[in-house]
């Protein structure tokens, strides 16, 4: 009865704190350092929604310098004080108890029935998970955490009402009497229940969608597994059979080591596509519950005994990681990244627990929980880009940190050895040298002893110096190895995003076709046009646009001229039309086909002559043209007729069956033109085609272009030779610095107003305008600086 009264007291306190928070106190600024940046990119959005896939991974990396204060999470705006109360109650309860659970094996407990021991043990396990879900609920706001509080934490705390007595007996002593631990435990359940109740009041909807339910169930599994206290397996199942020995590199030990790699990889793949909130929640939750698991063998009394302090290297990771995650201490984080990870792995490779330690025993689970987390958490945090990939500066910081830690441990070891057996970081004993052999043991022979007052200090300078240097050397080597793994992870993540975008494009195409054939045109009204809509192109991860917002429409039967100075963006547009380069923004429609989503069909409509011939020169002209004709599936009779016609037209009779290596530049260019026309394309694109051709051939090419357009096809032609453009084109467009300046009909020009004059004038005006804009911008900047 007394415990139920304490639960009610907990409820009353929690309700009081909520009321205080809402109506009296507005001290949320206390936690303002935890606030989340509003404009963070949500990676749960599809890759297609992001404008440039190249930037997906880079956007995911928060800039530590710029947004140091804005990277954690925003407060839900409610229940902060009850949660603080919950944290205080839990800390007092956890560190004050004389917990019987530690030694319980196979449900055998004097004052509680076995089935109740089992239920209570499971409850104590789930309660830790529920407790941290409720605590983090205040700092994170996404659908699944609301559901976790409502559908997972609430039933657990309700179960607490039923199992409070046996749980207190197990946790706080067999008698179940009132003490600090049992009082705080009862109140903790009361406060937890209250926060859950408020969560229900905030969102009273009992219904949960199918996808939300799947998400909830999938996330529950790791949430529960991670919260496993070290004693639970021993409590439920006793000890495993004696032959299961994981000491040394036995197959059983290997399985444990495999899990050290499988677990982080599984977590990485499970959450890498989630929003930043989810990733942060997962990492903070994981680090907190595993820290709780690790500190199970600590009580307040332990902190009074220096020889029990958690200063072993791997142990430090257990509290450094959550601290770094919560308070964004990046320098401290890189210390754990470079130092703890490796130490933990070495410990896992040669576990040092006592003989007879059993696979399910509390000691062993504690050992592996501690070292697993110290090994993979820092790597996972960097892999998930919560912290940046370290640079040389971070490495140096962490080595300085390591030096400070090392010196501190040397002092502590030397000092505390006067009070008991102390061997932090194995600097004080022969544990390491014993494993390495006689030569290593000899390094400990040289000792340095001195007294300060009554305290005696003993050091092993050679051994300890070597230890430090080897560790720094290995840390440097490990940095290299981590980087290789991260490069693989990043490239895989980028590939995954692009592949997803590719699939989405395919679905978009299917939807647009609305049941029509995949090979049919997507835009049925525009089958005789080349349309470029809002086209933009950037290269790689550059922010500079090679072409921006280009719009063009070219009709069947037209010869369209494309003019512009070098580097204006002509070839960029052409290469995007023909499929050599992907499109960054906008749409290109080739005779009704989308150049990106229906690339193969669009290409079938195109014949392309590049600015520099690109041929397989070890083939003969005939072999090459037949190869191209085969790819376009040109019937035999048609190709015979066309090829023979072209041979005559371009005067290649004597050379066509020679290896193309023997051809002159002009001859190779002619072959490139033949290859572009052998399938009689609807759209013929020529990028500076007349370079290197003799006058007769130039004439023939021009005639070809005219005839091709006359036959109802489109000829899209880029050139610097304005006279030729003026003479054969129907319309022209002028492009400069990636912007289309104007499109004109050639009929507008005459002897007094030639295309050449117009071109030069347009380019000049554009340049003047650009300079004016640049000057204005500079002026504004200067004004801004003065202001």
């Amino acid at each position, binding site marked *: 009865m007394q415990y139920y009264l304490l639960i009610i007291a907990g409820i009353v306190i929690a309700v009081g704190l909520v009321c205080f928070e809402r109506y009296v106190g507005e001290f949320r600024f206390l936690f303002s350092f935890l606030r989340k940046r509003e404009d963070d990119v949500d990676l749960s959005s599809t890759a297609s929604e992001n404008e440039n896939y190249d930037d997906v991974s880079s956007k995911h990396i928060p800039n530590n310098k710029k947004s140091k204060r804005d990277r954690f999470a925003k407060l839900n705006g409610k229940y902060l004080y009850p949660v603080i109360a919950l944290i205080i109650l839990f800390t007092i309860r956890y560190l004050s108890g004389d917990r019987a659970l530690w030694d319980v094996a196979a449900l055998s407990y004097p004052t509680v029935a076995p089935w109740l021991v089992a239920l209570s043990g499971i409850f104590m396990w789930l309660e830790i998970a529920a407790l941290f879900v409720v605590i983090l609920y205040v700092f994170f706001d996404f659908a699944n955490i609301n559901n976790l509080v409502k559908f997972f934490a609430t039933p657990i705390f309700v179960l607490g009402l039923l199992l409070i007595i046996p749980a207190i007996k197990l946790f706080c002593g067999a008698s179940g009497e009132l003490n600090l631990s049992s009082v705080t435990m009862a109140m903790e359940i009361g406060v937890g229940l209250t926060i859950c109740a408020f969560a229900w009041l905030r969102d009273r909807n009992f219904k949960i969608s199918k996808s939300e339910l799947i998400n909830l169930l999938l996330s529950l599994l790791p949430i529960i597994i991670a919260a496993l206290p070290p004693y639970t397996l021993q409590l439920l199942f006793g000890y495993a059979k004696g032959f299961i020995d994981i000491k040394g590199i036995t197959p059983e030990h290997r399985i444990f080591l495999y899990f050290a790699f499988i677990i982080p990889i599984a977590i990485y793949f499970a959450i890498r596509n989630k929003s930043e909130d989810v990733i942060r929640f997962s990492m903070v939750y994981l680090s907190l519950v595993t820290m709780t698991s690790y500190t199970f063998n600590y009580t307040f009394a332990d902190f009074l005994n220096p020889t029990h302090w958690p200063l072993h290297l791997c142990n430090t990771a257990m509290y450094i990681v959550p601290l770094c995650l919560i308070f964004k201490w990046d320098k401290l984080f890189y210390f754990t990244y470079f130092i703890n990870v490796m130490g933990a792995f070495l410990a896992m490779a040669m576990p040092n627990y006592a003989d007879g330690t059993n696979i399910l025993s509390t000691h062993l689970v504690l050992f592996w929980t501690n070292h697993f987390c110290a090994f993979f958490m820092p790597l996972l945090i960097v892999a998930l880009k919560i912290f940046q990939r370290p*640079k*040389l500066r971070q490495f140096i910081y962490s080595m300085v940190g390591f030096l400070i830690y090392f010196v501190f441990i040397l002092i502590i070891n030397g000092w505390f050895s006067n009070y008991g057996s102390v061997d932090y970081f194995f600097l004080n004993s022969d544990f390491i040298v014993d494993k390495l052999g006689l030569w290593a043991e000899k390094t400990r022979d040289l000792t340095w002893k001195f007294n300060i007052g009554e305290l005696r200090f003993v050091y092993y300078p050679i051994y300890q110096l070597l230890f430090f240097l080897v560790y720094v050397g290995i840390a*440097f*080597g490990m940095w*290299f190895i981590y*980087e290789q793994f991260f490069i693989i992870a990043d490239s895989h993540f980028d*590939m995954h995003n*692009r*592949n997803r*975008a*590719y699939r989405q494009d395919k679905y978009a195409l299917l939807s647009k076709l609305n049941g029509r054939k995949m090979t049919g045109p997507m835009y049925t009204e525009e089958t005789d046009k080349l349309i470029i809509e809002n086209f933009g192109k950037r290269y*790689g991860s550059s922010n500079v646009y090679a072409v921006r917002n280009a719009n063009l429409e070219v009709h069947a039967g037209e010869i369209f001229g494309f003019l512009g100075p070098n580097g204006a963006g002509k070839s960029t547009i052409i290469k995007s039309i*023909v*499929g*050599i*380069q*992907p499109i960054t923004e906008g749409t290109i429609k080739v005779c009704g086909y989308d150049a990106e989503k229906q690339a*193969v*069909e669009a*290409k*079938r409509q*195109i014949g*392309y002559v*590049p600015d*520099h011939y*690109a*041929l*397989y*020169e*070890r*083939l*003969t002209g*005939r*072999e090459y*043209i*037949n*190869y*191209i*004709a*085969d*790819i*376009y*599936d*040109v*019937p*035999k009779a048609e*190709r*015979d007729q066309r*090829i023979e016609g072209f041979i005559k037209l371009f005067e290649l*009779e*004597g*050379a*066509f*069956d*020679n*290896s193309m*290596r*023997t051809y002159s530049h002009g001859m190779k260019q002619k072959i490139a033109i033949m290859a572009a026309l052998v399938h009689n394309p609807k759209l013929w694109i020529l990028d500076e085609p007349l370079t290197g051709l003799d006058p007769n051939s130039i004439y023939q090419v021009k005639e070809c272009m005219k005839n091709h357009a006359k036959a109802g096809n489109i000829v899209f032609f880029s050139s610097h030779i304005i006279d030729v453009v003026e003479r054969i084109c129907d319309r022209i467009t002028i492009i400069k610095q990636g912007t289309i300046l104007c499109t004109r009909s050639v009929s507008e020009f005459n002897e007094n107003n030639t295309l050449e004059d117009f071109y030069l004038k347009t380019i000049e005006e554009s340049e003047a305008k650009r300079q004016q804009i640049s000057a204005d911008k500079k002026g504004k900047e200067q004004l801004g600086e003065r202001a």
Partner: protein
Amino acid sequence: MKELKAKTPLKARLKHFISLVLMQLRDKMDRTAFSTKRKAIFRVVFLALRFIAVAAISYLLFYYAALFGIFSISSVVPIGIVAVIFTIIFVLSVLSCTSGLMNTLYFADDNKVLVTLPVTGDMVFFSKLVVYFIFELGRSYTFTLPILLGYGMSAGFGFGMYVWLIFALFFVSAAPVALGALLSMPAMAAYKGLKRHETAKIALLCLVVGACVWGIISLILAIPENINIVEQRPWIMQSIYSFVSAFNKYTYPSYKIATMLMGSYVNMRFVHTGETFVTFGFLLAAIVVFLVIVYLLAKPLFLKMTAQPFEYEKKENIRARANSKHTKYRSILLKELRLALRSTEISYSFIVVYLAVPIMILLLNKIFAAMSTKLLGQYMTYSFNLLIILLILLASNAIVSTMYSMEGRAGGMKKTKPINLVIPLLCKIFYNGIMSIVSIGAAMAIFGAHTHFTIAQTLMLAICVLAFQYGHILWCAERDLMNPQNEQYATSGTVMNNPNSNKATLTAFLIAFAVFGASLKLFTENPVSACIKLMLAGIVFFIMRAYLFVVKVRVYYREKM
């Protein structure tokens, strides 16, 4: 040119020369490795680790050779053995320099640009030699030096010996370049001659390959039926001694250079005598003489070659052929076959590799069969078979990692064709795939005939090897597609120190040794289940690489190049 030389002061000429050298170095080096501070640090660390690894392996080999008295009863491996190793490295360097300088001096496309620059022909010519010397120097200091250092450490060299070694190696590295430049002239003449007479070229190649095969088979037949290293130790040592003596006798200059570098073993320690400095003087004189001859003979040839408008002669009166129609996939395969057969230097090197694998396995198993081994020894021989097959085959895939880039600009035109890109890209490696089946099939059949494995187990191991080979081919191809060098091939016809090839070779070694280690462990546990596990590992590797190849081509290939 003479006018230009007369007017330009020496300081300016030197500046021009350095600019020329730097320009070519920038063009030929993989600068992405030094693009950021972090990449540069990793690159330096990687090179340092590689250097340390080579030195450590060398040290261990020499140390254990001395410890077990393999070459001599003395506590130090005789200098003659080092001279043999040095000679092999030296000869390989000369061959590499001859071939490389032939391409870079006479056939490189950048010659046409370089001779138009306002510098003398001499400068262009020597700048090319200096650039090649710098690369050769890099090779010497990253490969030859750690090997010799390893020997030095095992033999207890003094500090001064190391300083001399590092100093003298600088000049020794110039010798293969000078010699290679000299030999590149007849090599070029022979190359051009063979190019004109395709039949002679094929006949010569067949002759060389046939001679090699005959030589190896003779060696196999010469293997005694019973090898007992312990009992036959005196005979073996005598044979080694005779071989080393004869080898050093016939390669006397190289032997002298090796002793000049490492010193002479006198009174239980290595020292440098006056002879060292005499040899060093002779070496310097020889390099100068070679360079003068090269200047007098090769430079005019170089200038003549740069002035040639076309490399290939047009054949007159070729009979006009008929057009032919094929399906698109057959046509692509046909095109690749034609290109492969007409790029003889690549296709023949593949043929040699695919022939070498079964022959090597036959040789290896004949030796193993003659040896009396325990059970563990037998497992080791099985694993060693897998290692040899994989090492040769996978290392040869370094060529695959340049195959797409070698298409130059024509490679980019594939993207404009109305066809799923994966298929034409796969067609490029189709013939390698077919040849791999034949080669691995033959090698594994020989392996199976010499071991106690059943046909099913041998088949499983064959599938394992084939899967790793296919997976690695795809990996190399993917690397070339993701990091293409087409533009460099299009402009200079070659890529020196191609990062894709280097990575392909490195992964080949890693995979081969990983399979070797895993197979050894698994064979000792259970040979039957080992075959299944190895086969599954191979299949998983292949599926993973195939998936990544397809996806990467789909999502990245359009953006590359």
